[in-house]
């Protein structure tokens, strides 16, 4: 199977030949790849070099944490990439953004109102958790819609708090 991995704008073409061999941008490499302890932790030995990474899927990206650095990789096979390019690549910008509680907590304040225009980075809601007041910010420009919680309310993890359209 042939994949295109994209990290920081750079593309890597990776062909998985079998359990022990891949082709990276055309170059044949022997890999020794194994999962550790049944955890999302992977060990890779390649050309004698030993690497270990924590790997987590986050929506349509893969987070790779290795030696204290976080890489964000998009992995697509050729068909997926064609489809995405055909779709204009702007898919991630359309549709409303639903602000979800990243953890359980107490809504301390909601400094925005429904219908209000907000800029990327503007604070939408202050959530208290673990004795810290955490500012949840808008990931993009838009208009605040459907505020579903009130200050003083306890919320669950992943509960939708409000939307930005």
């Amino acid at each position: 199977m042939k994949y295109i991995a994209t990290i920081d704008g750079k593309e890597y073409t990776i062909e998985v030949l079998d359990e022990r061999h891949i082709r990276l941008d055309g170059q044949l490499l022997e890999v020794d790849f194994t999962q550790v302890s049944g955890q999302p932790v992977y060990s890779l030995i390649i050309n004698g070099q030993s690497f270990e990474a924590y790997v987590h899927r986050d929506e349509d990206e893969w987070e790779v944490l290795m030696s204290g650095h976080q890489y964000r990789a998009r992995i697509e096979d050729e068909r997926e990439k064609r489809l995405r390019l055909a779709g204009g690549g702007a898919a991630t910008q359309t549709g409303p953004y639903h602000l979800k509680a990243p953890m359980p907590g107490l809504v301390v304040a909601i400094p925005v109102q429904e219908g209000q225009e907000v800029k990327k980075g503007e604070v939408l809601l202050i959530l208290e958790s673990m004795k810290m007041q955490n500012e949840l910010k808008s990931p993009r420009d838009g208009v605040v819609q459907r505020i579903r919680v009130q200050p003083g309310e306890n919320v669950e993890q992943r509960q939708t708090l409000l939307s930005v359209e």
Partner: protein
Amino acid sequence: MFNKVLIANRGEIAVRILRACRELGLETVAVYSEADRNALHVRYADEAYLLGPAPSRESYLRGDKIIEAALKSGAGAIHPGYGFLAERADFAQAVLDAGLVFIGPKPSAIAAMGDKAIARATVRAAGVPVVPGTEDVGNLSDEELLERAKSIGFPLLIKATAGGGGKGMREVRSLEEMPALLTAARREAKASFGDDNVYLEKLIVGARHIEIQILADTFGNVIHLGERECSLQRRHQKLLEESPSPFVDDDLRQRMGAVAVQAARAVDYVNAGTIEFLVDKDKNFYFLEMNTRLQVEHPVTELVTGIDIVKEQIRIARGRQLSYSQEDVRFKGHAIECRINAEDPFNNFMPSTGRITHMNIPSGPGIRVDTGVYAGFEITPYYDPMIAKLLVWGETRAQAILRMRRALEEYRLIGVRTNIPFHQTMMDSHRFMGGQYDTRFVEERFRMEEVERTAPLRPDVAAIIATLVADRETRLAAQIIRPAKRDTSNWKWVSRWERLHR
């Protein structure tokens, strides 16, 4: 003299105190909330009593229930740890009233140092320099504070009178932005401490936060154990501490130590305490506050002095003399502490909760880990995000940094996000290596992306790993979905598939 100690706390500090008691041959009593039934301090203690539901005010802040548990269990003393009830004079008094020993200072000393205005007035009278501000004049209205702000000058800080740990604190750069920040600070102070009084304090630019550990017994002996450098902070929360401070020389250490002892004597202090100072670039230092309790970062001092501060606390509370005179205190090598928090350094340090599925702590020479968590334990949103303290000792600061690098690289904790990558980046930062940082460094001049890393970036390797994981998941998904379509010979099909793909 007591032989059983109740530890009125949770997490790593409860475990830390429990260990000291064990090593002194004392019996231990834990208290816990419903969220902490399986916490390490409950598992390690000889006895354990449930206080109530998870929220602190219904459990770890219930002084009455804690004293009740102490009496029921026959504990002769209560160690409060830090946070929760540690600096509440009324709790300390209630413990004494119940006929128990409070492992800490007298209630009068807690009260004197707990009200920062009184604290400043007291130490100023004893000849200790303080930072200019309104702390000494009692609680003021917004109007009065706005008036006083002009004479103190900007930038300045709004701080909660009852507070600590950065809660209710705001930085003000001009008179115009001050009213809104006052409102926010009072709101946070009210929420955190039940008291919305605030005061103003001159912000010392380029300041270092350096504190002196003191020990005082009931015979009037007061000694200091040198300084801890705590300038690496984010939102006024300490992230990393070291001892000695790369900024402090023998002369400054002696002068600050002498002043710290003076400050402690001013309130007739007994037990362990910490005097926090701000030090400007010309090595002028100002009294900031006194923490009348065991400090989170006490182990860095233990590592460079060889003195077990918690054991000394218990010794003092048992009415013994200090084991050490000032002359006995010797400093050897260098210690660094990284606070390991359950928060995501790649997402604005957002707290992270969940079950720890796997954990492997660093070990080997020169490493100490103080933690209250383990694989299988669930991190809840009710308490502090600090889940461990990773400490190293080295013969020199450079060796300590190299050791901390390898320890951080070894640390594995899966299930919640941690700030370990932040510390790894810090250890690679040239400014940190050079000891050139102040209290604003993390927020203003440190970017994780911009530090030149010791380990070279390997996006190609990350791409391979991510691809191989994605490939496995694709194949796994295929295994699950396809047989359902056929609905027969599932195992045969899988084994044929495996033959094809291995």
